[in-house]
């Protein structure tokens, strides 16, 4: 399994408090600009696959534009409806010389299986979980 920091785009291409989608390998990833850092999650709402990148950002969460599910961007956990144990994958980000980098493994980028939730259905990919965002 290969782990890589991929150069994605200039930071300025992701407007403040908005998200943008990017295709990496076989997977679409939503990257959000929170002002003091960038957070990245899989661009598929666990509910009906809605594009999270098009949602309204509320603090460290995004609200899916299709049916209003609220997804935490730090852990990828669904926060509303609250009884849901579903999750989306998260990806570490980093900024170098004004360019945003994403940490991806060949496996996570190709894998379409549903993500695991911390403490719910047994841990999934630990490495992916360590995302803490990146200071600009």
């Amino acid at each position: 399994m290969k782990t890589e920091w991929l150069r994605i785009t200039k930071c300025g291409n992701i407007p403040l408090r908005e998200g943008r989608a990017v295709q990496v390998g076989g997977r679409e990833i939503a990257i959000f600009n929170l002002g003091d850092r960038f957070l990245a999650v899989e661009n598929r709402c666990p509910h009906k696959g809605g594009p999270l990148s098009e949602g309204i950002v509320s603090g460290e969460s995004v609200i899916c534009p299709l049916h209003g599910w609220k997804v935490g961007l730090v852990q990828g956990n669904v926060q509303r409806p609250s009884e849901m144990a579903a999750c989306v994958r998260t990806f570490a980000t980093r900024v170098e010389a004004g360019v945003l980098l994403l940490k991806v493994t060949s496996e996570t980028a190709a894998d379409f299986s549903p993500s695991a939730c911390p403490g719910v259905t047994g841990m999934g990919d630990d490495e992916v979980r360590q995302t803490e965002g990146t200071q600009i």
Partner: protein
Amino acid sequence: MERTEKLEKLIVIGNGMAGIACVEQVLKYEKKFEIVIFGDETHVNYNRILLSSVLAGEKSVDDITLNGLEWYRQHGIQLKLGVRITDIDPDAKTVIGDDGSVTAYDKLLIATGSSPLIPPIEGVQKKGVFVFRNLDDTRAMLERARPGIKAVVIGGGLLGLEAARGLQVQGCEVTVVHLMETLMERQLDTTGGSYLKQKMESLGVKVLLGRSTTALLGNGKVQAVAFKNGNDIKADLVVIAAGIRPNVELGRKAGLAVNRGIAVNDYLETSRPGVFAVGECVEHNGVVYGLVAPLFEQAKVLAATITGNKGPKYEGSVQSAKLKIMGVDVFSAGDYHGNGANAQEVRYEDAALGIYKKVVLKEGKVAGVVLVGDTSTSHRYMDWLISGADVTPMRHTLLFPQPASDGGLDIAAMADSHTVCGCMGVTKGTIIQAIHSKGLNTLAQVKECTRASTGCGSCTDLCRDIIKAVTPEFEEEAKATICKCVPFAEHNLREILRSQKLKSVQEVLEIYGNGVGCEVCKPALSYMLDMLWCGDHDEDRSARFVNDRVHANIQNDGSFSVVPRIRGGVTSPAELRRIADVAEKYSVRMVKITGSQRIDLLGVKKSDLPNVWTDLGMPSGQAYTKGVRMVKTCVGTEFCRFGVQDSISTGIEMERRLENLFTPHKLKMGVVGCPRNCAEATVKDIGLVGQEGSWQVVVGGAAGKSVRKADLLITVEATEEALRCAELFFQYYRENANYLERTYGFVERIGIEKVRKETVYASEQVQAALLDRLHKSKALSGDAWLERDSPVNPTQFVQIQPMENLIL
């Protein structure tokens, strides 16, 4: 009960918070009295501390009523409002009222409170000068306060600052003038005061320190404020909030021992047997209390004394103060100066965030605390201050408590004896017991049952958290606020945005909200700003729903739908050809005729949108937004055998005049050329129904989730007049409806009579002003699809291509 037995007569002078708190406590005992309460105000008992919220428009008078008339009736209490007791005869055991009445008592309770202190300033009797003590003062100020006028508040203490903020929310340009060099110097050290000053200034309140006011100038009506050192400032309204003085005259005349307040012992007895006093008018151990919590502690002790259960003692209170201004958090308690050799200070400051915390320790115990900018932990310090616990083991985390991972845990960790509501002295245990034993589910029930959170209201969130944690059936009360992020009613918020000239969503969230916002309030605020400033504001696309970011309607697969504007439903062969070409060129999945005489191209990729619009060469139909959708028409006089009015050209003109504007919810219109109503104008938000020689303008119709026949707004002869009336209603709806409120709900809520009165039957000036604002908005609006040529950001429509990709 044995009503025949003659009850002792308890007379209470003062219908304020202290007197009533005491009566409430007395009622808990078995011993019954015949109770008579005299109040010189004409209102039932209300929460005086919340007057500043009334001034700021956050609460109504009803909201702050503590005990309604029903409560007095229920307990058989005689209430004499508007009667001022002028004399007490302790020998005859009677009180004499200014209405000439003489009433005998067995026990007398003096709860006369205090009055505003008026410093020796020349000209205080001028018109436009107010004190801020009671409901009448508040109402008078509200009547006077107008956007743009200059208000000067003399006194930079708790009350002065709250008055200043209230007036500012009402739109006044406010200056606070303070005699001392530190704001709230009785509660804050100099550092805390300077943080507070910065915060007030950042909200737009001017602060002048170290100014001694000498005179209020003006001819009959105040026009300026003069200072000792010169430099007069203009003023249309002046509030004097220079402190309070206990109302002791009655006690003095009755021969009671009086110092600064009426002297009482630990049982709240005055120097005369059978005469008691409570609240702001008393002095205990040399201290006069002017805040609410001590009053309740006194009331409890006094109730025991009066009912023959003498024993509990009042031993003084730890004074704490909390400023109740949205967005300005200040808390102070105990000895916050930290004077004395054995005092140690623990401090934390973050100038950029405006946070300042200081805890004063003496011999390992918390002696005082000052919190500015973040008061979320105040109850923690208050607990320590009261319990006198040794906090030495916690010194490392004194100012940084381990954050609770969720509200529930924090609640669980709290001891049952923890005082949740300092004002009313209600513990966590009491609240939980009430919830269980009475099956309470709402905050309102808990408030009624335990009185918790009926004082200053600062524990409201904590109470709600407790209820949430304990009862599975917790019900959030429906409040007329947008959402939790910005806890204001929408009409207040509109006024705030207007008067404060706030022009960006983030700014509003930071000053009046939680700084974060959500998918509910952000679009609502975006709408309000757009409506108020007609485009002359910072349009923040991140606060808009995706449809309004890319001007198309998102579909269930993430693709978008495109609906070009086809005014009045009238198109042309050339347009139809272009639509067909576009549909083929971009492999549009479905071309559909909509229910509103338009054509919908479904399944367009976001990145194709700009090109689709260019190729169509038609303006946006706004089918994706909370805005003007379309005008549906019948063919009218142009073709129809029965047509009596030209519905086509009128409909097209109506659409032209209103298109591209945002509205609180989507807005659909219809124009029909005769009462057969073929284009269903009577179930549209706005409809024009043609009849022989006139038009009916109808509003508030619906044929969607709700079905409602529109109300008749007016019948007019000329087509131009019909359009004008439609415009009047349109703008009135834009300005007064809540976000996401359709016209049918709006018209029902307001009532068509009022709508008529404030639109088509309003004065000429009001009508002209409505239309003027509408035309301004219209002039600054435009076809959103032109953003195809000048996107608001480089990736508005463009999919980001990664600079490098994985090699799989």
